[in-house]
């Protein structure tokens, strides 16, 4: 009898949970301090509409969270909304019909006119239909320089990559690490991409990554990029840290001259109480080609049977791109907004530099948008080996790289 009662109670409880349709479970991997503060802006705004945001944060990086998210969607237990990097990560899920079509929301809200750059929305589009809501732009193309390290070494803070390379000797003599690098694969691969754009120029990058031109990847221009990366490898030889924020900390404390890292690094400088221009300098495009890639995060809405939930999903999609939410979220996250028509006057200097470049249209697509997860994985494997094994010659690495590009899909 007790057992029967318990079962009934449990069933009643579960169905009660399902009835309140406006409760949306949202998964994401924003768990660090600044990120959590940013995502709570979304939650606040969504709760204000009378719906409920059920937070499903997954600790760990995207590499940990993505497989969990994907297996839940495939396994028939989809969440109501989830963060992913827009681009090709969800391609197959969309093709399998597992994602909600947001085209009507996008048309009603005029996303096609608002979202800047338009490539963000293109990455959400499959067969003319829009399946995700981009929320921010993060760019990789930055180098962060420590003023303290350069004044200790008695040289001026470099204003571009060539000066940075030239000053490496002076830093080493002063007992500093010229270039701080974490040893994880994604960092090796990311830093290489930045050097690629700076040294080889955006046209070469587009030819290889967008058009998958293996000849260009094996060509003499790319050879220069690999030489530059090999030189950078020598400068980073003494940087024996794993995580990116440990490497950033070397720059903050003046033990290292600089770090090539995406714009999320500036959160670390902010937390350490440092001021751009006084304590550290940020150079977009390594000071050579002032250009940023426009990868970032987007929200996808796995298909549900319940029409009420679907309505709430569309409500949330609409909200994520509304001007007020975009400002509040991106200021906390340190990323750039996806709309060109909003005012971010309270942003710091580095963010403003990014906004200017964005407004001028000097943009690239991100690796996530143009390469499949498989190809990115192969490049990461190659790069992490190349950056950590000084006997791996630039020419050998380039040959392997060209092979990967030739087979890329």
């Amino acid at each position, binding site marked *: 009898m007790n057992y029967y009662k318990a079962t009934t109670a449990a069933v009643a409880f579960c169905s009660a949970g399902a009835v309140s349709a406006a409760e949306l479970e949202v998964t994401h991997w924003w768990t660090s301090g600044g990120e959590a503060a940013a995502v709570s802006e979304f939650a606040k705004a969504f709760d204000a509409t009378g719906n409920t945001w059920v937070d499903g944060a997954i600790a760990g990086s995207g*590499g940990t969270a993505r497989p969990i998210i994907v297996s839940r969607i495939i396994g028939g237990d989809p969440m109501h909304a989830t963060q992913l990097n827009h681009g090709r990560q969800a391609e197959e899920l969309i093709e399998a019909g597992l994602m909600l079509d947001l085209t009507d929301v996008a048309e009603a809200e005029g996303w096609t006119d608002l979202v800047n750059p338009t490539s963000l929305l293109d990455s959400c589009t499959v067969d003319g239909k829009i399946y995700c809501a981009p929320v921010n732009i993060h760019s990789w193309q930055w180098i962060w320089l420590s003023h303290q390290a350069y004044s200790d070494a008695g040289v001026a803070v470099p204003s571009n990559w060539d000066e940075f390379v030239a000053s490496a000797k002076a830093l080493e003599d002063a007992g500093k690490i010229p270039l701080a690098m974490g040893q994880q694969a994604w960092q090796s691969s990311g830093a290489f991409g930045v050097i690629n754009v700076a040294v080889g120029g955006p046209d070469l990058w587009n030819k290889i990554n967008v058009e998958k031109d293996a000849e260009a990847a094996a060509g003499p221009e790319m050879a220069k990029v690999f030489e530059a990366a090999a030189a950078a490898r020598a400068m980073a030889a003494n940087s024996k840290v794993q995580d990116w924020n440990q490497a950033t900390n070397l720059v903050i404390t003046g033990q290292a001259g600089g770090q090539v890292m995406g714009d999320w690094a500036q959160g670390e400088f902010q937390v350490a109480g440092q001021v751009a221009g006084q304590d550290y300098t940020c150079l977009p495009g390594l000071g050579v080609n002032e250009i940023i890639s426009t990868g970032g995060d987007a929200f996808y809405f796995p298909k549900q049977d319940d029409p009420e939930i679907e309505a709430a999903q569309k409500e949330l999609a609409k909200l994520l791109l509304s001007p007020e939410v975009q400002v509040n979220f991106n200021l906390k996250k340190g990323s750039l907004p996806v709309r060109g028509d909003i005012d971010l006057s309270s942003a710091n200097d580095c963010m403003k530099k990014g906004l200017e470049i964005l407004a001028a249209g000097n943009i690239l697509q991100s690796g996530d948008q143009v390469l499949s997860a498989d190809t990115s994985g192969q490049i990461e494997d190659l790069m992490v080996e190349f950056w950590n*094994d000084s006997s791996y010659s630039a020419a050998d690495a380039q040959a392997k790289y060209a092979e990967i590009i030739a087979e890329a899909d």
Partner: protein
Amino acid sequence: MAVTDGAQEVSRRTISKRPNRLFKNMTAKIATIPMIFTALVVFIGCTVWTIYHSFTKSKLLPAPEKWVGLDQYERLWSTRRWLVSIENLAIYGICSLVLSLVIGFTLAALLDRKIRGEGIFRTIFLYPFALSFIVTGLVWQWILNPQFGIQGVVQRWGWESFTFDPLNNANIVIYGILIAGIWQGSGFIMVILLAGLRGIDEDIWKASRVEGIPAWKTYIFIIIPMMRPIFVTALVLIAAGIIKVYDLVVAQTSGGPGISSEVPAKYVIEKMFQSQNLGQGFAASTMMLLSVLVVLIPWAYLEFGGKRRD
């Protein structure tokens, strides 16, 4: 077999009314159905499914229609990371097999000499086995850390030039992982071998003492050959642990520096779930299955084949 037997039984039953053998011991047979089902579907069915899909170009979702033949295997064997993984597994495997057995047997033999406080020592040696590989890996990551671990301590004692930094040296990093693996596993092997030693008849020892044979000779020439089945069991347990080594590497080095401490299991997981390339992951896991069979078949032959022991 069962079908023809059943048919004969049915025809015979009309005469003798003997119960059908198929229905004999019904409860036991019904009780084993779930296990038979599990074995067929989970072990054999899923294995066949995996092997089949390793010949396809499956990406994020399984795609049985995209047949590509041996392409995934060709790519696998031309990937440096996979080759490094195999080499690491070979080094780790051979060293861990030999060292676990030698250390495990030595400890077991020492405990078997009826020393005082055997229970305490046994607990101390077995205790690491109670820790997961993740915890073991993190503990040894700290012990081998150049600033805080062994190297740092010895340098602070005054031996300034002492260097012992295996986890940051690509050439010897796999030995850094090996140390942790041995520390974790040899206590367990010791317990198994100790049980085997305790199973040896006291009279053997009495006889060898009467003959004046030294203890070490008794161990090597009499006791060890008698413990063959126990050694085979220990061997299989160690081998299984070697092939599946993954979490230890993730906790200690996550494959670094570079790709110098990668192992096959890690390749499988990352290709399947992070690179969204099921076909490649399946090809790699099929190769791992092959390596398990290479270990299992000789064992099965030793245990069940050859002369039957009835």
